[in-house]
């Protein structure tokens, strides 16, 4: 119940923002623009879902932007292998990209859990490893010329809703179910709240920590496929700073950086707030510099609001 209330507050903030832009910026509510916003938030949303798992256990993953590039170039290399049918190429590329993400995520989780290291440091290492690996395997070249049907899928719409966004939404649904309706999910919250209590109850912390990071890695792999379908290129320099946007979506969505509190529904709303802000401020005619400045203010406001909420729910 408390959780629902938290999400409702963020939902109201999003609605107010939408209302503001609807009244002040031309074309904001046009069907085309809404499709645009949904497309524009998709990649960040997928990354933020994974980030929610990691932050809920009190961790952080700084490597997702670099991992996105690594997954994309591995997937893109497979996708451009000659003499494969489109179906074979796309399936193999998906397996390769998701597998790469899962492997990086597994390493993040395993290394930080096994040696009891802060994930901040371990994923900082992975940030460089994945970027270096992406540059190494491509020799820093951009991969392009993907199958036309794969490319078309990236801009496919169903009643004006991008298919890639529907995929992200389905992932939100799955993540919500796992986090709130399964023992596994509740234990992740438990680890974020009180690691010692979970350990004393006889659960292996290591497995759950590894699982959270691996899930984040799998989602990076999926985001990489979406990226390639959307932009028709895979370059080793994509995704710089994407981890910060994903973390921002999670934090604006009301998930506590210290772990144990929050929800993936909040993350969905957080990603929407960032996307609506970015789009609305351009339509509003504001410069790019102001747009970035305002997004920063919103992140800080979200954390301050969270502080008050914490006090109220604790009382």
């Amino acid at each position: 119940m408390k959780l629902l209330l938290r999400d409702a507050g963020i939902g109201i903030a999003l609605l107010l923002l939408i209302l503001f832009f609807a009244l002040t910026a031309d074309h904001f509510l046009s069907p085309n623009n809404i499709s645009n916003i949904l497309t524009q938030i998709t990649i960040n949303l997928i990354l933020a879902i994974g980030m929610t798992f990691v932050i809920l256990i009190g961790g952080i993953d700084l490597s997702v932007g670099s991992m996105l590039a690594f997954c994309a170039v591995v997937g893109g290399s497979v996708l451009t292998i000659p003499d494969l049918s489109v179906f074979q190429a796309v399936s193999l590329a998906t397996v390769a990209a998701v597998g790469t993400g899962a492997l990086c995520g597994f390493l993040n989780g395993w290394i930080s859990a096994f040696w009891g290291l802060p994930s901040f440091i371990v994923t900082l290492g992975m940030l460089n490893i994945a970027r270096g690996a992406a540059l190494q395997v491509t020799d820093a070249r951009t991969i392009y010329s993907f199958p036309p049907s794969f490319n078309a899928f990236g801009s496919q719409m169903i009643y004006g809703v991008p298919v890639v966004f529907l995929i992200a939404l389905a992932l939100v649904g799955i993540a919500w179910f796992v986090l709130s309706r399964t023992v596994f999910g509740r234990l992740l919250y438990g680890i974020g709240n009180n690691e010692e209590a979970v350990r004393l109850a006889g659960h292996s912390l290591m497995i759950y920590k590894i699982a959270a990071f691996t899930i984040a890695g799998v989602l990076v792999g999926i985001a990489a496929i979406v990226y390639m379908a959307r932009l028709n290129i895979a370059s080793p320099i994509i995704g710089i700073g994407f981890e910060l946007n994903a973390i921002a979506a999670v934090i604006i969505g009301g998930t506590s950086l210290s772990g144990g509190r929050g929800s993936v529904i909040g993350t969905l709303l957080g990603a929407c707030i960032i996307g609506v802000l970015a789009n609305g401020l351009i339509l509003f005619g504001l410069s790019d510099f102001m747009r970035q400045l305002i997004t920063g203010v919103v992140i800080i406001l979200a954390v301050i609001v969270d502080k008050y909420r914490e006090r109220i729910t604790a009382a």
Partner: protein
Amino acid sequence: MKLSKLASVLTLVAATALPTIAVAADKPVVGLVMKSLANDFFKNMLEGAEAHAKKRGDYELKAIGMQNETDFESQLNGVENFITQGVDAIVIAPADSRAMVAPLKKAIDAGITVVNFDVSLDEQAKKDAGLDLAFVGPDNRGGAKLAGDALAKALGEGGKVVIIEGNPGADNAAQRKLGFEDAVAAGKLNLLDSRTAHWETEEANSVFSTMLTAHPDIQGVMAANDSMAIGVIKALDAAGRSDIKVVGFDNVSAVQPLLKDGKLLATVDQFGSQMASDAIDKALAVVGGGPKLEGWVKTDIKLVTTDDVK
């Protein structure tokens, strides 16, 4: 055990370090400083320079690049390392027109021949630092005007256009924007909006989609590099707008299919692979006792259209 390991590491280090020192003694060393090596443009440039070094054979090439277009720090460190190593010449495409002035001044004071190519250093910043340095490079403004003129010709007077700019603060971004604006004025086009997408594909895709919402009547787009033109063209595909014409800049290999399909009206080739080699030739001439370079040594530029890729 530990000692023997240390010894073997030391031998390894010595083995890798010694040959460079030995070579440095008889051939001039040229330090080539480039921008993002993950951009095809600089990648081609590096390969051109490596082939050139092999062909000439009378100098040693040391090349460094950056992680991404905005990673000024590593360029700065690269220049400082070259000064420490005592190279004979530094040939540099500065990441920022102002930030690189001070370290290059230091290099010149250390007796190193410096050639500035690709992006010109800021005139005022050079003056403030008391630096007198020639520029070897293309006319970015003129090149952008060529692309803009091609767009203006295709659209006719009154055509509604937008500009997608490069990094704010970079001189070539500013020059290309000016060139596009020259074309707008000359072709009597109607400029609706102009925004940066920091040279990046994904950002250009998002920014342009939103511009298209604000101005559905856009007829033409001028992108300050091809990476951003690719993002714009994807946004047009997604919106089902085949009526909008796009021009880019750089002529990277990723846009060849787009030129062929007519999705990209034109781009500009500034022969990046030759540019570094040309600048190296000029640097070596000065190192060998030739006269100091002065002013602006212009390099070739060419408009590339569908006809050139067929």
